[in-house]
């Protein structure tokens, strides 16, 4: 089989993985190939609008498992292929030199056994790092069930490692991926998380300590294949951030690729729901919120009409208006429409003067939402009184744009006013 054929098959099989980040590490070997910058770098955007930063590819799509949701399950009749480590390392280096990519995101179906597969992945990364002296980014998927020795070596070679949880509860996992157990997924995540932290402490003392997955670990959850609520999903994410020291949790709107009696029938992926989950995720990681502030048993799902911060604010009008000239950073961040950048600008300008309404405009802070939640030196500038229902009516998306799940794709593609929302799905800023 030609390299081109393999590339086609194994890229096609890899495309449902969401993560593509190349950020979080700094490697800069002198006179060799490649360097990493902490900010990461996007090289292209595919026709679904997703960024391409890494060569996202499977080592092999020959799988011994039969997970209901997965395109590569053993019972599917699809073309199968497997790279040799030489082919894949060579391809990565070629693409990298041409500046098509920032590095490699290597994953695989489970071929023969977890250890066999993990060893193949490692051979590829070893070649890259040792033969090609490749200093670019490597995100390595850990294969659940592989031995701890192999996983450890993976962490030493890669910039980031990940294990995909995919299904957020034990029940769903049993239903759709009966050959995987929660334990086989969570155990390596836990050990890797502990090791990342230990090495970080070590490296604070001496820079000679070997790197171990310096950009942390991440995971991915499928949204909409099983009946979990947003609250269940966010609680899981929150505990992963808190207890396992995860860098990122990715959410992937379920795209039906198979049919099966245990699978839901959906006509298009729940993109709006995925988008709201990313926003909520951002609130937890950067805005100082916790899940139970905006989701509880009575309201287990995120509001589709408003972003979660606006939704929270409308339910907590007693905390507003916030005085722009006095509020501290965490308070500023809770104002709908004011994100990390705007809050930073406000604090900067406040060092030299008291802000007036015109100043906010000059700082290019979007006041469409913020105007109802702030005062400047005691003055309120909103074009509606401070009343939750009136503000809600003002901020609500016009009726013709409000479409339910089945039409979400249209909702995203047609209305130009939604673009800001769309971009925030990538940046997560609110």
């Amino acid at each position, binding site marked *: 089989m030609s390299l081109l054929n393999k590339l086609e098959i194994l*890229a096609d099989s890899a*495309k449902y993985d969401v993560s593509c980040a190349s950020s979080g590490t700094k490697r800069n070997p002198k006179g060799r190939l490649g360097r990493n910058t902490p900010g990461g770098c*996007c*090289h292209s955007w595919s026709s*679904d609008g*997703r960024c391409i930063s890494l060569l996202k590819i499977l080592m092999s799509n020959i799988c011994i498992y039969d997970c209901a949701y997965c395109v590569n399950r053993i019972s599917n009749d699809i073309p199968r292929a497997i790279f040799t480590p030489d082919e894949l390392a060579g391809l990565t280096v070629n693409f990298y030199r041409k500046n*098509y990519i920032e590095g490699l995101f290597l994953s695989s179906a489970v071929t023969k056994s977890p250890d066999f597969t993990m060893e193949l992945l490692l051979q590829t990364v070893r070649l890259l790092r040792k033969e090609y002296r490749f200093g670019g980014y490597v995100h390595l998927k850990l294969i659940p069930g592989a031995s701890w020795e192999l996983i450890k070596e993976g962490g030493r070679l890669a910039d980031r490692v990940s294990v995909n949880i995919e299904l957020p509860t034990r029940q769903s996992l049993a239903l759709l991926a009966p050959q995987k157990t929660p334990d086989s997924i969570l155990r390596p995540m836990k050990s890797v998380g502990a090791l990342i932290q230990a090495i970080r402490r070590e490296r604070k003392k001496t820079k000679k300590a070997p790197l171990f997955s310096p950009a942390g670990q991440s995971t991915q959850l499928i949204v909409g294949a099983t009946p979990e609520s947003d609250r269940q999903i966010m609680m899981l994410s929150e505990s992963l951030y808190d207890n396992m020291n995860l860098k990122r949790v990715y959410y992937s709107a379920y795209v039906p690729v198979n049919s099966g009696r245990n699978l839901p029938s959906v006509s298009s*992926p729940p993109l709006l729901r995925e988008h709201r989950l990313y926003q909520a995720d951002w609130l937890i990681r950067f805005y100082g919120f916790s899940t139970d502030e905006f989701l509880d048993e009575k309201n287990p799902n995120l509001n589709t009409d408003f972003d979660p911060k606006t939704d929270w604010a409308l339910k907590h009008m007693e905390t507003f208006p916030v005085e722009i000239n006095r509020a501290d950073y965490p308070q500023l961040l809770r104002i709908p429409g004011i994100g990390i950048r705007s809050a930073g600008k406000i604090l900067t300008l406040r060092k*030299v003067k008291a802000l007036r309404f015109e100043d906010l405009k000059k700082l290019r802070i979007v006041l469409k939402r913020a105007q109802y939640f702030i005062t400047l030196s005691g003055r309120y500038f909103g074009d509606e009184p401070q009343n939750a229902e009136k503000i809600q009516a003002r901020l609500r998306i016009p009726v013709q744009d409000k479409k339910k799940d089945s039409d979400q794709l249209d909702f995203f593609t047609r209305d130009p006013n939604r673009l800001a929302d769309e971009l925030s799905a990538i940046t997560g800023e609110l």
Partner: protein
Amino acid sequence: MSATYIYDGTYEGLMTCLAEVLKKQEEPDDIVFFQDFTPSLFSREVTVETKKRKAESFLLFVKNKMGKDTLRNIMKCFLSDVPGKGMMIYDYVKLGIEKGKNLDLFLSDERVSKIHTLSMRVGREAHRMKGLLRFKELFDGVYYARLYTDHFILPLIAPFFAGRLADRCWIIHDYKRSRAAFYNKRAIRIAQLERENVPLLSSEEIECQMLWKRYFQKIAVPGRYNPRLQRQFIPKKYWRDLVEVEESIVQGKRSAE
């Protein structure tokens, strides 16, 4: 009668010019690169001769008085390609003499915000090109990339690529300005390079492009097709030198119809 000051287009030239103008008490009419100069009946013209020492001591003055960030902003604005940048930098530095280290905190003052916006635009284009630049392998093993940018960003991206592609000789050609950065595995040199010099590709190059194009098509999820979002991220003006995009966008359109 006030005057229009003309410099030679170099960074040192502009700095010499600013140093001399700021020493005088009268406001200049304009500060321009000689190629952009159009004579006016109402303004005296003064051609400022570039003095390296003077420029350096002026830069040091700015650095000590206003800080490193200010210096970096001025440099990025100099690299921008917008009319009136000479006067914008003049206004900014003049305010800086008054405000000192606090200069960059006055975000709502136009003299500061204009510079910040411009400096950000230049920085953003440089960052964007770190991703969108495409090297092609030439018949002699040299790597060649062409770009067509709004601003003159070669000085900002060349050191980055010297670290990234350290083990190859390469050329980054600013096609719009007929300038190029040359790297010989040791040092970077920026010099003139005319557009006529279109190089021959190596035979492996075509094969590599083929692989990349196919990968690019396969990695998109059809159920999430969203070309408008794609175009938002890659503005049309950058398509011409992008190996993968144009073709697939055209094809994408066809399959959507």
